[in-house]
């Protein structure tokens, strides 16, 4: 056993602690320190190991451990990837321990984003575990001298059907050289034959969560640990001109770090660290910054080209509209956190990130270390939603820890998270379109400026179809977000399609079905409309009904929304039906939970979330100023899940978010006649 105070295990020690098996170490060249300076791009396409030893370990006592570089942020892949392994090994999910996002123990991974875990990682886990199963079976067949169809695999044993004899996995595993056993596709179980996959296995570590025993990144501790704090500039782009840290340095038990524009402190508790950083006198030179009021004028001034519209000849109606999208913040409930510890020139960091290997590269680069001297661990964290790709908190904690000579924990405050993390990009979308007299889309010219290209492609059939994304430098730091720009593009597209339906005098559903060819989009749209009883809904000034549909990242989604509107223009979403198809369903209950969560999160961005900024500062940098959905905002939510066992599973963490905003905007317009072309819709609707 390892001592509790020792640093987390290397792969060698970890596998030793499990016992038996061949020790497999990931090759990491000494030349990496140099190469890591390239921002990690070299590693973006690192080939995954093909041998089972890298992914799976079966100890002599039968303990099964699987390894993945993916991380758990609430999307329940700890459970679903474990299901994949258990399914292939024909065992209970509880018998498999999954090690995630530990750069010393798991194969390299690009990161947990883009809804890639289910379509790319689950097949790898299945391939490795399925091949392992067949390798174990082969050993048993040799011993018994029987054919494959005479044995079963059950209860972590190979079972001789005729004699009833059983050989436990643990007994056989040590005889196999797993480093030379390469994963084979033909060992993978097809969805039709899944027994663990496709079932609602409960969240594996739920008990740890409800008892408060799970240690999130911000909960990690180390012996003699200090608490860090960073001096922040008063505004974006401000440069430190002078600083006096003497008062802080005089405080007993405080270490001050000053290196260029970076000033931080470490102290024996967070209270003292706060006092120390407040005592620092700093002068900053500010740089001019644009404000949120000027944002759309800024984007317009920077953008090149415009939606021209194609030839509208023979069309009954031509339309031209502009939509705007605000910056919003991910607001993960757990802000960025990191605990860094230096020992003998090696750096160990526990941190909340979607890219532990990317953060390892950042740390290696920041401190001029070879990557094999940096160990990043990512305990299951308090969510991310695309907002935790980066490792700035880890680098800061490591800088302070290096100076202090002791482990340092740094937890960003909510204000820091709002200000110094990154945002979902804002943008402008211009659409010019035309329809024929009988309601067929004849022209579609769609231009997204700055917000992003995801979900740009239209599912509607149109002879003259032009969609483009135009990059514009973002005045604020921007990055990934759940679904990226697919929400913005769906908002504009589905709002505009609704405008065309109205212009054509057609029902929303009928107009869409007339112009949609994609069978999967049609199927979800019909399924949502049926469950919602769309044909029976008639909007009134106080109650509106709207729908929207779309596709992205292999997922197909349609959403119907019912809103109530008061005389003073308060909007409440009363009822949402969303139909969702992501291929073969891995875990129905968790999938339903994801779809519901995406609707709730999307509702915030649809109605009221917007970052306000001026003079290089975020003005609503607190939860008392930045409104996120709460209990009173939540509608009745129904989900219709379409299980396509004939289609490989796509990810479901993102795309279910894309349709709620246009469905709400369409419902409001249907009730009031007021077309809101900005997201969030409430500020314009109530103006």
């Amino acid at each position: 056993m390892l001592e509790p105070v020792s640093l987390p295990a290397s792969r060698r020690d970890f596998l030793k602690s499990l016992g038996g098996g061949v020790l497999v170490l990931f090759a990491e060249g000494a030349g990496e320190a140099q190469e890591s300076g390239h921002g990690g791009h070299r590693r973006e396409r690192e080939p995954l190991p093909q041998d089972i030893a890298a992914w799976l370990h079966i100890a002599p006592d039968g303990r099964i451990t699987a390894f993945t570089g993916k991380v758990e942020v609430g999307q329940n892949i700890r459970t679903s990837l474990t299901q994949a392994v258990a399914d292939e090994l024909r065992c209970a999910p509880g018998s498999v321990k999954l090690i995630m996002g530990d750069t010393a123990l798991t194969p390299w991974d690009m990161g947990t984003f883009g809804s890639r875990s289910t379509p790319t990682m689950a097949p790898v886990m299945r391939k490795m575990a399925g091949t392992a199963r067949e390798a174990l079976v082969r050993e048993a067949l040799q011993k018994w001298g029987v054919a494959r169809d005479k044995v079963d695999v059950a209860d972590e044993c190979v079972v001789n059907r005729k004699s009833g004899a059983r050989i436990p996995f643990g007994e056989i595993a040590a005889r196999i050289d797993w480093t030379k056993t390469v994963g084979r596709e033909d060992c993978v179980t097809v969805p039709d034959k899944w027994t663990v996959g496709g079932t609602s296995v409960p969240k594996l570590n739920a008990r740890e969560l409800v008892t408060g025993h799970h240690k999130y990144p911000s909960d990690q501790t180390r012996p003699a640990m200090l608490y860090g704090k960073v001096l922040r500039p008063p505004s974006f782009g401000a440069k430190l001109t002078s600083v006096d840290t003497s008062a802080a340095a005089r405080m007993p038990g405080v270490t001050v770090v000053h290196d260029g524009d970076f000033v931080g402190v470490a102290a024996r508790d967070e209270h003292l660290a706060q006092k120390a950083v407040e005592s620092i006198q700093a002068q900053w030179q500010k740089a001019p910054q644009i404000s949120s009021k000027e944002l759309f004028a800024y984007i317009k001034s920077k953008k090149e080209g415009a939606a021209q519209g194609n030839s509208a000849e023979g069309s009954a109606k031509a339309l031209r509209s502009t939509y705007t999208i605000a910056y919003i913040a991910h607001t993960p409930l757990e802000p960025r956190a990191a605990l860094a510890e230096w020992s003998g020139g090696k750096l160990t960091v526990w941190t909340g990130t979607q890219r532990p290997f990317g953060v390892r590269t950042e740390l290696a680069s920041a401190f001029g270390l070879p990557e094999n001297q940096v160990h990043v661990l990512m305990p299951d964290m308090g969510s991310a939603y695309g907002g935790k790709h980066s490792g700035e908190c880890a680098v800061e904690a490591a800088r302070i820890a290096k100076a202090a000579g002791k482990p340092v924990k740094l937890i960003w405050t909510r204000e820091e998270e709002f200000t110094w993390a990154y945002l979902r990009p804002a943008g402008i979308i211009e659409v010019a379109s035309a329809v024929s007299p009988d309601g067929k889309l004849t022209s579609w010219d769609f231009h997204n400026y700055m917000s992003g290209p995801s979900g740009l492609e239209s599912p509607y059939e149109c002879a003259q179809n032009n969609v483009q994304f135009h990059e514009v430098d973002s005045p604020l730091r921007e990055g990934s977000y759940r679904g990226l720009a697919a929400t913005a593009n769906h908002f504009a597209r589905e709002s505009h399609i609704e405008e065309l339906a109205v212009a054509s005098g057609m029902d929303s559903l009928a107009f869409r079905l007339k112009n949609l060819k994609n069978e999967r989009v049609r199927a979800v749209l019909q399924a949502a409309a049926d469950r919602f009883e769309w044909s029976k809904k008639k909007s009134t000034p106080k109650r509106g009904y709207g729908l929207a549909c779309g596709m992205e990242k292999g997922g197909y989604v349609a959403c119907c929304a019912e809103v109530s509107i008061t005389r003073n223009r308060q909007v409440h979403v009363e009822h949402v039906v969303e139909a969702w198809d992501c291929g073969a369903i891995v875990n129905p209950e968790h999938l339903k939970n994801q779809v519901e969560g995406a609707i709730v999160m999307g509702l915030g961005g649809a109605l009221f979330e917007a970052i306000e900024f001026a003079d290089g500062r975020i003005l609503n940098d607190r939860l008392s100023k930045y409104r996120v959905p709460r209990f009173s905002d939540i509608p009745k939510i129904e989900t219709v899940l379409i299980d396509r066992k004939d289609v490989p599973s796509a990810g479901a963490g993102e795309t279910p978010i894309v349709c709620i905003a246009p469905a709400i905007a369409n419902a409001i317009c249907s009730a009031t006649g007021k077309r809101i072309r900005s997201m969030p819709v409430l500020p314009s609707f109530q103006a």
Partner: protein
Amino acid sequence: MELRVNGVRKHVEVDPERPLLWVLRNELDLTGAKYGCGEGQCGACTVLIEGVAQRSCITPAGSVAGKEITTIEGLADGERLHPLQESFIQADAMQCGYCTPGMILSSVALLRRNAAPSESEIKQALEGNICRCGTYNRIVAAVQKTANKMSAEAKAGRRA
């Protein structure tokens, strides 16, 4: 000062103005109470003070000296989970789980003062707790189910 946490007396040498949240987390290693906003807006730091839900991030430790403090770590009876903890698991009323301790403790306090809350009473009582993963409806279902179960058990107990 002396803090009574989960039935145990703990002596801590801290500034009485220091928020209870950080004393629990950093002095007593009770990390079940979470930091989410530091201004009593999100409910992740909720603990019970004499059975009443309170935001520990804006509660000076000195103000609760000698009072009974319950954190999420003290809710289960040994290995036996509190009925709300069971219901949260059964309803899959969490994703990342970071808000869960605060949600459960706020619900414990609610059921203590209102054994049979309506849906709107539950939502009202929990309005100060944020779940960014959006499992709100599942949380309401878990609380309702617990209330029904506890009142059924209480009735059975009265009959017995």
